[in-house]
């Protein structure tokens, strides 16, 4: 899939980032009839949402929409997908950009049939970033079952080891090519859409909340993986320290968000995510006690409001207005005690639970590594769209924190802005 068909710049758009926003922009533009290059740094498409178990408020699996989107890509030769690819430089002006892309080696070519023989013989185990290190995977792996492209990848960690050779020998289809090297590809495009998405804020930076110090303090994204059928526990949610069932759990809202020491803005999704997580817990533990500590519960819009109401009906879900500012562990039981002031009653609460989940927020990818293009950012690394100038646009969470629906609305709109650039150049 990764050969350059060298379409005329005037007709082509580059979308950087293959998460839900990037996919949307790319596919919507291509279905209008434009040539699209979709550039993704991971070996698979789907981005953050592919790590989620369910979407709020429908509680439906993201893989459902991804599968449709992948099919739309398969049925549409106008979309070229580049995985393991990163933009190195962008020069030029709206309507006429030269982009060079760095393609990292996958060490597996199009011959791969996903038969899995390589993984079977590979002995090295590596930490899966996809599962936030909660799972060990083979050095030769398929990112996840429904991954697109459906092709294995060799971790650079095993390159040059006997393992790599073993994998190569195990492959009957000569799909493993250890000679693959990083290559650069130059493309001409008329417009770019940056859908570089977000990263979960590094919870270990919030030192008063005990992440990284106490085993039973995890993040909301980790909980998504635990709840996922293809996650490290195949959907079983137990506390990390001793695989004990959950009788009580605390959700710490605004863990890093709305906080000038960390992320000054509101990350938009965390409240709804924790409400959703309450359903994950309830589904598995009918009488577990669930405590949600918040500053403001943000469930805007009729649909989210309804969802929130539904959760409130559960008499074992408790909402406390007060931010958790202290987290302790009982070394003996490994239980976690979260401390907050209930600001309405004016009482300090020391709630001991078996497990605490930090509702960490989203940080734009560009906050940690500026993009190689002439873009303007907010202090926090969100890309500011300049529609007057045109040519390059940010879509989804590269532009502002948002839920999937809004991101897709935004991403669809940005497809049009990109097309406008081509039409009006």
């Amino acid at each position, binding site marked *: 899939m990764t050969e350059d068909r060298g379409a005329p710049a005037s007709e082509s758009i580059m979308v950087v980032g293959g998460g839900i926003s990037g996919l949307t922009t790319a596919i919507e533009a291509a279905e209008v009839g434009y040539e699209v290059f979709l550039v993704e740094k991971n070996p698979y498409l789907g981005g953050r949402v592919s790590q989620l178990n369910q979407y709020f408020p429908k509680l439906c699996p993201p893989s459902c929409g991804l599968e449709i989107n992948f099919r739309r890509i398969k049925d549409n030769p106008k979309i070229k997908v580049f995985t393991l690819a990163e933009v190195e430089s962008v020069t030029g002006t709206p309507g006429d950009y030269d982009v060079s892309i760095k393609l990292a080696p996958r060490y597996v070519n199009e011959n791969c049939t996903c038969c899995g023989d390589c993984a079977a013989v590979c002995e090295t185990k590596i930490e899966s970033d996809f599962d936030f290190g909660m799972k060990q995977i083979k050095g030769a792996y398929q990112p996840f079952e429904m991954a697109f492209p459906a092709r294995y990848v060799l971790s650079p960690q095993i390159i040059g080891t006997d393992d790599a050779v073993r994998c190569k020998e195990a492959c009957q289809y000569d799909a493993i090519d250890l000679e693959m090297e990083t290559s650069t590809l130059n493309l001409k495009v008329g417009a770019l859409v940056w859908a570089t998405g977000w990263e979960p804020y590094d919870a270990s930076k919030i030192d008063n909340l005990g992440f990284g110090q106490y085993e039973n303090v995890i993040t909301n994204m980790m909980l998504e993986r635990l709840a996922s059928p293809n996650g490290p526990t195949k959907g079983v949610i137990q506390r990390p320290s001793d695989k004990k069932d959950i009788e009580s759990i605390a959700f710490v809202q605004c863990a890093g968000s709305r906080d000038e020491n960390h992320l000054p*803005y509101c990350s938009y999704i965390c409240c709804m995510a924790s409400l959703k997580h309450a359903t994950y817990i309830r589904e598995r533990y009918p009488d577990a006690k669930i405590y949600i500590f918040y500053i403001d519960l943000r469930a805007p819009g009729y649909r989210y409001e309804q969802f929130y109401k539904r959760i409130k009906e559960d008499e074992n879900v408790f909402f406390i207005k007060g931010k958790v500012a202290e987290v302790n562990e009982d070394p003996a039981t490994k239980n976690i005690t979260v401390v907050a002031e209930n600001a309405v009653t004016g009482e300090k609460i020391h709630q001991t639970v078996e497990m605490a989940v930090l509702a960490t927020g989203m940080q734009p990818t560009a906050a940690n590594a500026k993009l190689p293009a002439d873009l303007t950012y907010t202090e926090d690394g969100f890309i500011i769209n300049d529609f007057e100038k045109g040519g390059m646009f940010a879509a989804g969470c590269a532009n502002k924190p948002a839920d999937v629906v809004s991101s897709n609305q935004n991403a669809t709109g940005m497809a049009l802005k990109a097309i406008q650039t081509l039409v009006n150049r």
Partner: protein
Amino acid sequence: MDKKYGVYICEGCGIGDALDMKALCDIPGEEGVPSKTHSFLCGKDGVALLKKDIEEGTNTLVIAACSRRVNFDVFRFDGCIVDRVNLREQVVWSHPRSEFPALTEDQKGDEEHFDRLEMLAQDYIRMGMAKVKKIDLPEPYKLDNFSRKILVIGGGVTGMSAALDAAKTGYDVTIIEKEALLGGNAVNWRKQLPMQSPYEELISPIVVQMIQEVESASRITVKTETVAARIAGEPGNFVVTLKKPGEKIEFDVPFPIPDEMKVDEKGKELNAEQLHEKFMEYNEGKNDILSMDPEGEAFGAVILAAGWRPYEPEEGEFSHLGYGELADVVTNAQFEEIAKKGKIARPSDGKEASSVVFIQSPGAGEDDSDFEYAGSVTSLVALKQAKYVREDFPEGKAFLFYQHMRTPGLSENFYKSLQQDPGIFMTKGQVTSVSKNGDGLIVEAENTLLGDKIQVKADMVVLATGMVPVTKDDPVVNLAYRQGPGFRDNALFLDYADSNFICFPYETQRTGIYAAGGIRRALTVEESMEDASGAALKAIQCIDSANRGVSVHPRSGDMTFPDFFFQRCTQCKRCTEECPFGALDDDEKGTPKPNPTRCRRCGTCMGACPERIIGFADYNIDSVGSMVKSIEVPSEDDYDDPPMRILGLVCENDAYPALDIVGLNRGSYSAEVRFIPVRCLGSVNVIWIKDALSQGMDGVFLLGCKHGDDYQCHFVKGSELAEVRMKKIGEALSSLALENERVAQFQIAIDEYDKVPQIVNDFAELIEDLGPNPFKGF
């Protein structure tokens, strides 16, 4: 085209090791169809081999290898009919030889033993061959009259923004606005929320300059004091009748008759003609939907941006807050008007209102929700209006009582900057009462962050009431569709014209009509403008797709469309009624009139049709029927204890991928089941099930998406309709002395692949217990 067949069987990925290639090749062989095997069909030589045969005239290929979900590009051959038989994921990978052993030499040919796996593979090859015989390459549907123009309903910020976006992309747009002036709600505002970082200061409403832009845009036509009387036709060729608001004309859209009118006094259902009569009576003075307005203007697509209206509290609805009783208690919309006029003055006596309380939640009882239709906008508006008080009076005081300060995302900055104002006071709290206090007001609240029950003196009180979509009051789009003039799902969405799809926010049940802005959710100006761009793109995309004769989402690019054999139509109207997209309008006799560009190609009509006169070039009653019939059903004549045969009709969107994953994970399930992928469970015609059972198959099940309010069906209603039909078929079965249990439907989400083997095996067991189908062998 005259077909030249070829069957190609791949030996790779363990297929060759598990299966007897020769035996498989004999199947096409029996019919004189050439077949070839290859050790690695998707590899270069494999593809070369296929290409060579194609050059030599083969144009109809059955490729028995891996799932159609992979190597889609490798096995795409333009101008050829290609069917993918899934021998890998759904045969060898999901049925390990360890569990499904091959026959030993002496077992072969006896009447006791059989090779389940071999039988499975052979059946799939037969099914593939049967299918390609019955399908053709699609020809795109071309509209005779085609328009690229876009109609925008609503001249507010959203509508204008969408129009400008479409115009900038080179499309002609007509905006219709029911009021005399453009601008919508925004023209009544003093100030507007910030639209970009740092989101700190209020700005003057951008609507003003937007109106100028629209009026000077050459591609945009503006028609004020105009509404759509009806929108007839289909994407690419909507025929629109415009009129002045309130006017009554013959092309006003007719409404469907209520159910009680559909029966005669004896309660007997009326026939098509009688129904149509009633319909015309009911819609007296209006033309039927099928009579096109000769003066009608043609449009390719419609953007619904009719927006919202301020919520109007009912008599005594918020009496505890004094609304209705106390003149100085107003809604945020009323306050905005007052603020727009100039210095904020009290309605009661026109005195300056320098102390104003803003209430964000009705606060009745324990309920902490905001006013209905609020979204997060009303929080932001309360902050904005608090600022007005401070602008007007140096000593002014603004109090905000919120339950949850809703300033999500970057609008948190706006909250932060407003906090800085020493004259703005905020607290979480439950307002219990607003009462008179001299010539002013006194507001009492509980559970505040100030501890005690508190009272605040105020000159005015403002309720942060919500933004009601105008679709609550009437359909607005006024579609001349047999199913009715409005969007169908709105009831699910509190009357907003929203989409139920998280991944596909523009997908509704009305192709070619895309809602944006306040009509779909409570949105800020910034959000509405983004939404408008998206809707504009979808409109443009729909027009171009219609022009290319291909479907839009989710079967984007699909060139097929339903084809009707009208001679046999019995005017039962089912297709018209059941189509999730209202693509069919039946005439006075009840004969359906297809509108192919409204169609999403799900095949629900095909599934609904009792006469089986609806089909697609590459997917029809016959193609699937023949696949069913091609399945070999062993009977006692063949074996002492013949294996069962179960038909599984699976949704290709969710269930089929799930099955693939079972194979990928090397799970395993009964080898007696034969799967046939369907576009949507809605397209399943009961005849297939009857065929299966009457040829002796022991059971049939449907596997598809979850339905209900949070439906996951990509065609909205498919799996739900199937469920209804399966219930009906139960009766038919009992008349045949067959147990209802032999036919079942199961719901799974795409990620529930771990559950699939269980579901399949449980059903197989159940059938086993019921014993063989009595019709077997006949």
